[in-house]
């Protein structure tokens, strides 16, 4: 008996229920402006590429990882030494985090310097900032999971920072640690944050961010907007998407080469009773904050130096978060000031990161 499947009817059934035609129509009618800064548009989609890599490799690692005091380092050891290409999967996951956060930062700086956060894209900027913080939290929670001596020491330092905040600080530290100190409970907690809580938050914010990008469209350079110049554009599908795929392929090749050549090792098993090893460093994207905390003296009058540093960092993050409202006239003098502040910020982060490595 021959079963004939009418593909047109099949497609129509889906279209009826999921309303796919308007989405496809939108994709084919959407246009992407072409100008001297168009290259930066690709940084946004590259983040999605690395996010996809993180999800796939994260699931693969989670199949064998055990978030317990006894099992954590042993399971990573097993992944690295027994499972076929386990060390490579771990390396891809580790490097994927680095690439993802690097691209989030580059994307953010591109938006900052092209002033694409200006009206009506304020909410897009704010959701983007939230995504940066969530990505960094992913990195922070994931760093402890191998449960080696360095990750334990770095997490002790990292979770102690909120304690400097008055009133709620100690509670935040206790909440993060699941007690007064970093223990097996912290490990389980961080694992749950890393694989359950953070992904939920990330996908919720990402959905809003992508929706806003679609709603407002891609921004054009400020000078073209002021001159009311008509900027040439390309269709999103297929012209722009195909260009994106070329960039993804090259990035993926470079990324895999690095992951193959520089696979991360696993340090000695963490010992809760042992003193912190020498040269404890957080991940590269926290280095400048780490160094900032270090340069403050222990006491500054009635308060601790750490408290002052944390307050300065929090205020800076809040200012950056509300940047579109503060820099509300990007074409004027204020706009230039924020442009220079951005450059100073980048130089500061680079210099302090290098300093902390010396």
């Amino acid at each position: 008996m021959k079963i004939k499947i009418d593909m047109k009817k099949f497609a129509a059934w889906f279209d009826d229920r999921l309303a796919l035609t308007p989405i496809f129509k939108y994709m084919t009618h959407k246009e992407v402006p072409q100008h001297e800064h168009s290259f930066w548009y690709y940084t946004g989609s590259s983040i999605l590429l690395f996010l996809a890599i993180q999800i796939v490799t994260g699931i693969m690692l989670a199949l064998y990882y055990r978030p317990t005091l006894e099992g954590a380092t042993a399971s990573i050891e097993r992944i690295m030494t027994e499972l076929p290409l386990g060390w490579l999967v771990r390396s891809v996951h580790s490097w994927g985090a680095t690439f993802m956060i690097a691209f989030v930062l580059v994307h953010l700086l591109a938006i900052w310097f092209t002033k694409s956060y200006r009206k009506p894209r304020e909410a897009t900027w704010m959701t983007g900032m939230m995504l940066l913080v969530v990505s960094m939290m992913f990195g922070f929670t994931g760093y402890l999971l191998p449960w080696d001596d360095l990750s334990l020491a770095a997490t002790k330092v990292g979770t102690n920072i909120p304690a400097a905040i008055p009133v709620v600080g100690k509670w935040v530290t206790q909440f993060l640690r699941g007690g007064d100190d970093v223990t097996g409970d912290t490990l389980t907690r961080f694992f749950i944050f890393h694989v359950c809580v953070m992904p939920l938050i990330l996908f919720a914010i990402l959905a809003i961010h992508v929706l806003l990008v679609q709603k407002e469209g891609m921004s054009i350079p400020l000078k073209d907007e002021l001159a009311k110049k008509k900027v040439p554009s390309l269709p999103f599908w297929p012209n722009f998407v195909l260009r994106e795929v070329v960039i993804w392929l090259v990035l993926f090749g470079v990324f895999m080469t690095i992951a193959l050549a520089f696979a991360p090792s696993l340090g000695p098993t963490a010992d809760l009773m042992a003193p912190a090893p020498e040269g404890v460093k957080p991940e590269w994207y926290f280095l400048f904050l780490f160094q900032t905390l270090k340069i403050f003296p222990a006491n500054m009058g009635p308060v601790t130096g750490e408290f002052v540093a944390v307050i300065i960092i929090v205020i800076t993050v809040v200012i950056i978060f509300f940047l579109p409202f503060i820099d509300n006239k990007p074409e004027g003098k204020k706009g230039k000031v924020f442009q220079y502040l951005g450059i100073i910020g980048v130089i500061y982060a680079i210099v302090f990161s290098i300093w902390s490595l010396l």
Partner: protein
Amino acid sequence: MRTPRILFWLVTVSLLLGPLAAAAQQAGTPPEAKDKAQVEAAAAPAAPAQEAKPSPAPPAAKKPAAKAEVKRTEPIVPAYTGIKEKTAVIVFFVWLWFAIGVLIYFLRQWIKESDRIYWAKYYEPEESPRKDNPMAPTLGD
């Protein structure tokens, strides 16, 4: 236009499915009793209890508590578990860049064609080249 697109998908599918099938086959086979010495040395020189890892999936709960408490003091450096894995990785690496090169070649053809069609305003009936040029291909071709 149609030929490069078909070629592109053929190449993409074969390049993706080939290594995936190989990886699935590799994952299905239990790890060989390979480089025990390497695993041993990396795991714990002072911990003979960790030597025995014959099963590819040892249940964590059934392990004796004493075994889990052994602390590893030496770092584990990632290394190939055998010549088979090393060869597989080298082949994968060469295949990866070859596949990227081939795909980019086809993508470039596709981009050129898409741009040509767009700038010729092929899909805009008002300014379509077909309006003035009766020899221009129709959408169905």
